């Protein structure tokens, strides 16, 4: 019983949140890694692209809410998501047309793209703050829980409950659907194959008649879709604040690099590695230890490895470790 209680406790505070957070990171990292694979630069604007897409989704959600349209137990944001994706794709395509295309034609150094993406990040950030403001926004509605802690306790008779939020359930389901669709697209369709060919060897792909503009446009649209979905899920699960999305850059990049930049499978694995380590390291194990150790013994401290204020340090340290040991990531990305 004690061990079951301990497991329930750990699932409630570590596993469930980490799976949800990992899915969000994985979706974000997939976008970064795809852009890296095709356009060969780390897109610093990705966090703010997420913020932009989510912002559009939020605005549509509010509009739907004001008209009384909703999805019952599910959040209205799901209905608004396609609109967010569409606007975000348009925005990203416009930024490619106005900024990146010029450097592509010139075959500029990757570091120039980095700086350009910083410029795009600045502009996006400004636009988002201008439209929706820098503060927290709430747009979640519908049911809040799939399983409430109280119900779980009654069901199992344990003294620790597991609660699963609707947003967490939706996150995982959406992640599975999106990733399946993405891999199907990359492996089975003509466009997906041409994308992979372009990523593997640009010159060879051009020789075999692949239209680079098309490949690039598709990449941006997919990246925008992934960013919007990841951003909306994160916003539903936690809260929406433009600056938080900028700060997500670090764990997202860490996920992509840990898995191997340019490798989609690696990005997913990396997302979960980062999310699990972040939450496991910052969780206070005091209660867990009390269950695991027999008798009335209770530890003095919180038994927390690292305070949650330093959660970014976790992604950073994992990033450094991977760079030290396997600079190409666990799954061997494209770049060296």
């Amino acid at each position, binding site marked *: 019983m004690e061990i079951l209680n301990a497991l329930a406790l750990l699932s409630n505070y570590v596993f469930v949140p980490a799976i949800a957070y990992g899915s969000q990171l994985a979706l974000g990292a997939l976008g970064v890694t795809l852009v*890296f694979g095709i356009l060969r*630069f*780390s897109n*610093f604007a990705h966090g703010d692209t997420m913020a932009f897409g989510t912002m559009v989704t939020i605005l549509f959600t509010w509009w739907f809410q004001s008209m009384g349209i909703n999805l019952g137990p599910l959040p209205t944001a799901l209905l608004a998501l396609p609109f967010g994706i569409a606007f975000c794709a348009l925005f990203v395509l416009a930024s490619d047309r*106005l*900024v990146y295309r*010029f450097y592509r034609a010139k075959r500029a150094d*990757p*570091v*120039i793209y*980095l*700086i*350009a993406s*910083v*410029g*795009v*990040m*600045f*502009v*996006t*950030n*400004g*636009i988002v*703050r*201008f*439209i929706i*403001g*820098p503060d927290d926004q709430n747009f979640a509605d519908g049911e809040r829980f799939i399983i409430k802690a109280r119900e779980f306790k009654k069901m199992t008779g344990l003294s620790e409950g597991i609660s699963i939020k609707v947003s967490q359930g939706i996150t995982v389901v959406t992640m599975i659907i999106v990733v399946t669709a993405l891999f199907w697209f990359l492996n089975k369709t003509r466009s997906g194959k041409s994308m992979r060919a372009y990523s593997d060897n640009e010159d060879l792909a051009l020789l075999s008649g692949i239209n680079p503009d098309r490949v690039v446009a598709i990449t941006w649209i997919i990246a925008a879709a992934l960013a919007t979905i990841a951003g909306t899920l994160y916003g539903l699960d936690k809260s929406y604040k433009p600056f938080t999305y*900028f*700060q997500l*850059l*670090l764990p997202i*990049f*860490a996920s992509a*690099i840990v898995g191997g*930049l340019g490798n989609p499978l690696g990005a997913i694995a990396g997302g979960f590695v980062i999310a699990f380590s972040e939450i496991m390291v910052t969780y206070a194990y005091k209660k867990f230890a009390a269950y695991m150790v027999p008798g009335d013994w209770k530890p003095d*401290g919180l038994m927390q*490895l690292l*305070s949650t*204020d*330093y959660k*970014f*340090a976790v*992604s*950073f340290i994992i*990033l*450094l*470790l991977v*760079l*030290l*040991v396997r*600079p190409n990531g666990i799954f061997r990305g494209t*770049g*060296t």
Partner: protein
Amino acid sequence: MSALRNVGYFLIMATLIVLVGQFQSWNLALSILNLCLISAIMSLGVNMQWGYAGLFNVGVMGFAAMGGLAAMLISVPPVREAWSAGGIGVLMGVVALILTIVAAVATYRKLQAKRFGMIAVVLVCVVGYFIMRSLFDPATALIEKVNPASTGYLGGFGLPIIIAWPIGGIFAGAAAWVVGKITLGLRADYLAIATLGISEIIVAMLKNEDWMTRGVKNVVGLPRPVPYEIDLQNTQWFIDLATRLEMDPVTFSSIFVKLCYAALFTVVLLLVLYLSEKALRSPWGRMMRAIRDNEVSANAMGKDIKARHLQVFVLGSVVVGIAGAMLTTLDGQLTPASYQPLRFTFLIWVMVIVGGSGNNWGAVLGGFVIWFFWIEAEPLGTWLMEVLTSQMDAGSELKAHLMNSAQHMRLATMGLILLVTLRFSPRGLLPEKTGRAV
């Protein structure tokens, strides 16, 4: 011709500041000037990394914060009770930390090639971490209990704050060395992301290690290197001077203090600028540019690229750290929450790119121009919004929203300036001079 143009740019800049003095106030003009000077030094540091060597550092904020930390630690008087409460514990914790690092590095060196080498290193780190925490935690808890409303931290050394400027440089340089050692030699992206990470962590540390920095409670009232306004107002020679200049002693005292700061900052700026110019025109500077322009051939000539990159990365960060310490000195307080990446990292980048990467004078000019517009863009933006919304209802929600959001437009404007410069004039206002004719 180009020399004339360069002088022209600086003259225009000086005129703009004078105009602010004439039409807004001299106090404001001097505030802008002081921050322009600091920005110029910071962008000189970033210019070393980017302009000389092509290294993309996204952690300027962190290195500036290291400087700020030094300014606080050096200048504040020590808190005796806190030291007697937990000083020994903290010192032992620091010793444990250093020993852990030494042990980890030794294990890494010895077992690097072995199969389980990395696991051993991680194990050493974890064990060391627990020992360190067991020493630190009780000590810091005791320290934070010492009169938390006004102190609750160890305090500093109580030395003149000017000493903190070079020390701030050393702090920043040390952080840069760690990051550079690991990530230089890999892709440019990795350095960028690692510097982004270290800067977030440094700022998180300043915000949360209350025993060291009081965290978000801020350390205010740092001692100044220049006289205080109130003292000046009570000094005879100063009152005489004010009457001779026909100025109100109170206004004049604050202008006088700002002028003192400006003089100090100018000395540092000129010194850094002189050294940078010397370095850039020396064989070392030519080597750096050769490495930047063609790593492969520089490598073939026997240049140790990774070591040179590390060197210039640390040097640039030192300069940023010095500027960071100066900034905290000018503010007179350490406010960890004020370190924002958009203000401290990306704005400096705009300065370097707009000024002219690779050209030290360009970096200085960029620092002046961009800071000036960063400050003046806010009233300008508000005014613009007022004109644009003048036709709207006074009570309309849209108008209120637009007026409130006008301040965020300067972010977008800075981004646009960066993008436009990068595309249409990638060499900046003052392009880098290359070749023999210098």
